[in-house]
């Protein structure tokens, strides 16, 4: 039945939003993401009473397994990976009755026909009303085929605002491998599905601190009035990981760091930091403004391949005092691999607000610590009032810590108590943990809930993804064609290659110590 615009039993702001009954299907249900993130997230939604009262979750995969075997495995997964331990037996006991498993090849027409019948039976048994979320947690190469088969078996309904039932597809990254492949993939998908039914997940957008970026910028007038090229010198966005590539050697050899997280996570952060004020908080209003930012960034060209971008690959080194191997010695990695595990780039946003303000992005594996943050470095105070000998007057820096130790800090200068006018930088710090206590929900919890609700604000739209590829693909092509002879060029446990420091030194700046 059709959705009611104003439901008499709902009150916005005084009640959780209520969700339509539905079945959530996870394709690739035997994979790591399902056991580590998705099922624990859905279990938490159940535990907190955030799932619809009529709800079923079905795992879809090729491996033979019974419903009970799947339930048992998922219970172990929740016990291991849940953010709240131990598992609540009564909640699990209830949840597992809503958990099913279906065996099929991703490509088998017959498998999908059987699957359709199975879902219809579940609809009748559980009152799920034919509403569907299909979560594609498989290798990206399967995405078009799965969506085609879902369409052929009428499991994907034609999109309509007025329709009495809905179907939506959540897609994991990466969306494409380059600008052209992303465009091709999009074209192919549009044969079977409407863009409004596609939810491209970027789990960074589900993080509380990333969501807070909008609130921080647009509900605090003191910062927004300084948020432009008059006051800001430059912006640094850092995504550092201390982990190596682990068992993802094959994936990394195909993708590299830029595709793994610069093209998606970091470009999302950049567009949220740089966007203009949306006229409201609807998905389209926000995403329109994000896209405008990306459209103002010129793609890399022969003039900037060398000067504005640096790549790196880690060699052996030390993490937490323990010796670790270099990238080329990792499992499933070529001994002469040319793949980057570090990248630093300089970008300019060609609009009134940001004219002349460089945005420096750096991301890397096997850096000394895990830290994702955005630093807004303000211009120095005018004049030389406090520029006394042996006195350091530093620029104000506003840092938004995405993970870990989520929070916001402001570096400012203060006079050291005493008879001289010596100035010293001090830090004002807001920490999420201190203020809000409990562990914030996992990004996947919010995102799954939003998809069931039909809110695509925190998902990447087609033009965001395509524009991001448009900027970075020429650089990736250049790197592909021009092998880096210096690899490996940074030791595991260091802050990246020397070239990355030089990138900023040329502009008279330096990377912030994260």
């Amino acid at each position, binding site marked *: *039945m*059709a*959705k*009611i615009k104003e*439901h*008499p*039993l*709902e*009150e916005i*702001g*005084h*009640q*959780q939003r*209520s*969700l*339509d*009954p539905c079945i959530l299907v996870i394709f690739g249900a035997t994979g790591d993401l399902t056991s580590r993130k998705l099922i624990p997230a859905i279990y938490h939604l*159940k*535990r*907190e*009473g955030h799932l*619809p*009262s*009529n*709800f079923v979750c079905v795992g879809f995969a090729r491996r033979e397994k019974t419903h009970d075997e799947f339930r048992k495995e998922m219970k172990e997964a929740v016990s291991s990976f849940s953010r709240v331990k131990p598992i609540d037996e*009564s*909640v699990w*006991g*209830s949840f597992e*009755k*809503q958990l099913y498993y279906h065996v099929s090849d991703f490509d088998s027409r017959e498998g999908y026909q059987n699957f359709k019948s199975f879902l219809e039976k579940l609809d*009748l*048994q*559980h*009152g799920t*009303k034919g509403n569907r979320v299909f979560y594609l947690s498989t290798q990206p190469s399967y995405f078009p085929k799965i969506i085609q088969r879902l369409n052929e078996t009428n499991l994907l309904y034609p999109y309509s605002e007025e329709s009495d039932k809905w179907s939506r597809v959540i897609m994991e990254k990466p969306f494409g491998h380059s600008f052209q492949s992303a465009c091709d993939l999009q074209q192919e998908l549009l044969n079977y599905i409407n863009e409004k039914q596609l939810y491209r997940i970027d789990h960074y957008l589900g993080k509380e601190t990333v969501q807070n970026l909008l609130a921080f910028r647009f509900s605090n007038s003191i910062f927004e009035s300084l948020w432009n090229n008059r006051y800001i010198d430059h912006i640094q966005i850092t995504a550092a990981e201390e982990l190596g590539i682990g068992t993802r050697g094959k994936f990394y050899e195909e993708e590299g760091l830029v595709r793994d997280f610069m093209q998606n996570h970091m470009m999302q952060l950049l567009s949220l930091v740089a966007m203009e004020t949306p006229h409201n908080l609807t998905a389209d209003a926000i995403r329109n403004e994000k896209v405008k930012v990306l459209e103002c960034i010129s793609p890399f060209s022969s003039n900037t391949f060398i000067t504005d971008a640096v790549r790196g690959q880690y060699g052996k080194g030390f993490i937490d005092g323990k010796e670790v191997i270099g990238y080329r010695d990792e499992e499933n990695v070529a001994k002469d691999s040319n793949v980057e595990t570090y990248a630093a780039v300089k970008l300019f946003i060609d609009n009134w607000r940001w004219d002349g303000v460089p945005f420096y992005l750096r991301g890397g594996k096997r850096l000394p610590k895990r830290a994702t943050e955005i630093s807004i470095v303000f211009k120095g105070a005018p004049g030389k009032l406090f520029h006394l000998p042996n006195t350091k007057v530093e620029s104000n820096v506003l840092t938004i810590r995405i993970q870990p130790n989520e929070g916001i800090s402001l570096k400012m200068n203060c006079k050291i108590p005493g008879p001289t006018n010596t100035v010293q930088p001090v830090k004002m710090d807001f*920490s999420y*943990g*201190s*203020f*809000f*206590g*409990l562990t914030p929900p996992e990004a996947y919890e919010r995102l799954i809930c939003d998809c069931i609700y039909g809110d695509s604000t925190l998902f990447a739209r087609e033009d965001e993804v395509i524009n991001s590829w448009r900027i970075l693909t020429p650089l990736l092509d250049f790197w592909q064609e021009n092998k880096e002879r210096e690899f490996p060029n940074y030791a595991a446990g260091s802050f990246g290659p020397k070239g990355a420091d030089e990138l900023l030194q040329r502009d008279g700046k330096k990377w912030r110590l994260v």
Partner: protein
Amino acid sequence: MSSFKEMEKSGDLFNNLNFTKISHMSSEYIVEPSKIESQLNQIWDELQGIGKTRASLFNLIIYSESDKREDYLYKVARKVIEKFPCRVIMATIDYKAIKPVLKTSVSAITSESKSNAVACDFINISLSLCNRERTPFLIIPHLTTDLPTYLLWADDPCKQNPIASKLEALATRVIFDSELSDELNKFCHAAINHKERSGSDIADLNWGRIEGWRQLFSQTFKTKDKLDLLKKVSSIEICYNAFENEYLRHTKIQSLYLQAWLASRLEWTFKSYATEKAAVKITYMSDSKEINIHLKETATSEMIPGRITSVKLETPNGDFFSFERSKTSSQLVVLHYSTKDYCEIPSEFVIDKYESGLSLVKEIFHKGTSLHFLNVLKQLATHQEIL
């Protein structure tokens, strides 16, 4: 007996000025009012070494005139800080005290969750009745500026209390506990009057306590076909736990709220209210059709008093909805839906966790005054027979 002023002057007024450490989850020190902030700072200096972080999102004033509820309110405060760290200022008026009493103590309280690194300031103020007027003067200096202030008015708002308006003036939002009123009808009037008089936002813990049920109904009747069925319902049975304990004695309130909420949202017109032994029958009209609501008592000591245990709804066409607490876990509600020739597999919904303080947490989370709640108050206020 020495006069209050003499006692105050001599220092006897304060039970102990030697910063006695009381063994507890956190240290508590009895101090003079003027030493509250300095003693708190001293406590925090001591706590720094064990990795606890001092945090506060708002001020929470808890005002109570019943010494019996102190432990209960302390539990409530701890539950609140688990979710939202805040500075808690608890003022308790001791009616029985013969001598003038003014006792202030400070401590840092932590949540029940051991993994939580956050701890909060807790200022406890005990006063005899003759000192009651000092309450706002003791509280005001210790409110953290620029942060919202919530007042949990843990007393009957129907009673005249000169302190009420003074504390309400400090508050962003006043949260009542209708449990403390002997007559729900009068409570509703008092709450409405308060809202009209002060303009401040109001809430009630019992309203917060049925949020899970309201959510469950919204979810279940989310689609138009199910909502249409709800509109056709002719009979509703609400069972509640009538078992009483020392803190909770007015066990019917949540059921009355739930039925009044349904009636106001579905625009039913009140017709009659009758009591039959332990049950209540309320009749409404909708488009010349009668809707009969029965409130029935059950009694179990294993569940918090007043909690709704089951709701059953039936249409004249034989559509039947049953929401019943699971026998294995009372935080789960089992949903059955059937028609004359069809039956859905029962599903389960996590409705609430039985922990003191969660209703207050929910009400702090919300902003403004719920229009649904105001309508329920108006609905119940108009019918004097509803107690």
